């Protein structure tokens, strides 16, 4: 990616310091690890703050959390969940509606650490090109997983889903799940940039659908300061989401990144030397920009 001096973010580090340019990044890694550790406190130290796995868990034996995507597949197989499952899914849906659907991807999902590491290595190794995948592929796959659930009457996708497999593996025992981690890492390094999280993963595709209406959004609030250094674009895992917000002034578009595929990772906020971006909410901007935004068109 053509950024001003080598890797993206050099200038931001120079101006804001390393910590200043990695604020959200560190917070995000911390969150991912804390979530994992909370789940591991039980099996390791007998401290059961939260138990279960990503598919469904219980906080302090009281508050249920359930993955709405797996619950939807289950419903398609012809089974209606128990009340705690439905309640758990409602809580999760509400949380991600507030925080941004794909905040799950960048702030919770353990695979994100693998694919971020792959991207880091890909950049350092200077791997270019590779297979070109459509950003819409994941929605096709999402549809396919739902249809397979409907047709086979089993949660077929859960036999393969690396997201739940790895998280469950970390808590309940990995088995051969390491193979899946390595496969995704190699896929992202050598075969296609951001292949798994940005193009293939149907779990992310599902959460992006929640994200289309979610409250917390990144906003290019100071977009008039942008000097086209391309750092944000280079570092963004979903590059297509930035342009409408950042360069939308002539069309009268909101500076809010409205695409559900924005993972709210905050890397653009970190790495922008001119502090163009910050976290904002849909409400703050609605007053200023009453015109309906043209959403990112799915290919």
């Amino acid at each position, binding site marked *: 990616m053509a950024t001003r001096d080598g890797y993206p973010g050099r200038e931001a580090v120079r101006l804001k310091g390393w910590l200043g340019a990695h604020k959200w990044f560190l917070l995000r890694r911390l969150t991912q690890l804390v979530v994992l550790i909370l789940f591991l406190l039980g099996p390791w130290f007998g401290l059961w703050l939260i138990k279960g796995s990503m598919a*469904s868990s219980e906080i302090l034996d009281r508050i249920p959390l359930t993955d709405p995507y797996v619950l939807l597949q289950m419903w398609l197989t012809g089974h209606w969940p128990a009340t705690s499952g439905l309640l758990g899914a409602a809580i999760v849906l509400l949380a991600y509606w507030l925080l941004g659907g794909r905040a799950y991807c960048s702030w919770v999902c353990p695979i994100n650490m693998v694919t971020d590491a792959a991207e880091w290595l890909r950049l350092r190794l200077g791997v270019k090109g590779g297979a070109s995948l459509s950003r819409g592929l994941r929605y096709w796959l999402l549809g396919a*997983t739902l249809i397979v*659930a409907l047709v086979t009457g089993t949660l077929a996708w859960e036999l393969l889903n690396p997201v739940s497999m790895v998280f469950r593996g970390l808590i309940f025992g990995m088995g051969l799940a390491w193979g899946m981690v390595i496969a995704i890492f190699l896929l992202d390094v050598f075969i296609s940039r951001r292949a798994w999280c940005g193009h293939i993963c149907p779990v992310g595709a599902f959460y992006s659908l929640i994200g289309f209406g979610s409250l917390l959004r990144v906003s290019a609030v100071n977009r008039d300061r942008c000097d086209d250094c391309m750092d944000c674009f280079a570092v963004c895992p979903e590059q297509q989401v930035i342009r409408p917000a950042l360069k939308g002034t002539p069309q009268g578009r909101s500076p809010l990144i409205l695409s559900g595929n924005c993972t709210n990772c905050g890397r653009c906020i970190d790495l922008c030397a001119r502090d163009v971006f910050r976290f904002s909410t849909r409400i703050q901007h609605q007053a200023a920009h009453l015109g309906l935004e043209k959403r990112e068109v799915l290919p």
Partner: protein
Amino acid sequence: MNPQRRKFLTDSLKTVCGVGVVALGLGLLSRQSRALPATAIRPPGALPEEDFLGACIRCGLCVRDCPYDTLRLSRPGEAVALGTPYFVARDIPCEMCEDIPCVKACPTGALKPDLTRIDNARMGLAVVIDQESCIAFRGLRCEVCFNICPVRGKAISLEYQHNARSGKHARFIPIVHSDACTGCGKCEKSCVLDEAAIKVLPLHLAKGLLGRHYRLGWEEKAKAGGSLVTPDAQHSYNLPEGMSYEHGGAGLIMDKGEGATPFQDDPLRTLNSRRLP
């Protein structure tokens, strides 16, 4: 056709074909995953296997709430459908907790919440699978499976049989009763042999099923309070004088008295007399 349109169509076609292949693969994989190994026993209250694979979201909450670490989740590379809970009776059997915490933990009802008495659980069925190696069949006193059984005396009973080898002892044969056996696997776990002679099998492997058209005459008769078929019309035999036939069960009746029969009372005497009548 304009090149952009052509590109869009070919790209879409490629995507659809690729995704179709993946979906097909997933479908086949899911068919394969239904082959639950016979040693893998589902937790109490689990729906029938096909429904279970659609209802279980592989969260592991049942595993977490199992106080005896009986349950475990299938890992990648194991034969049980990935992420689903099961136990192997010979490793750690189900201890049949009275409050059934695993069922209570299930957020989807894949473990049926209406199972409230653990004695009603039917995880599988114990089968005395190898009578050749079971030492009870050889006339040795063992009865470990009988004594360890949590529904003692009901799920496994002992039947006394004659020991033909010694000629003077009894064999204490364990008999499993499907109306009481929960499939907890404690018998399999405690079997004293190197390889258990009594094993818990999934119900569909362990149970036979009588054809639905079968009616057992004596049961039907008891239900109806009498015979359901018209009694045979009395058949009259052409019998010699002084003889009659009784259908009630007595059979041939001969009037007592001289000359009623040409045969003696004891047939041997007739034969020994060397005199044909």
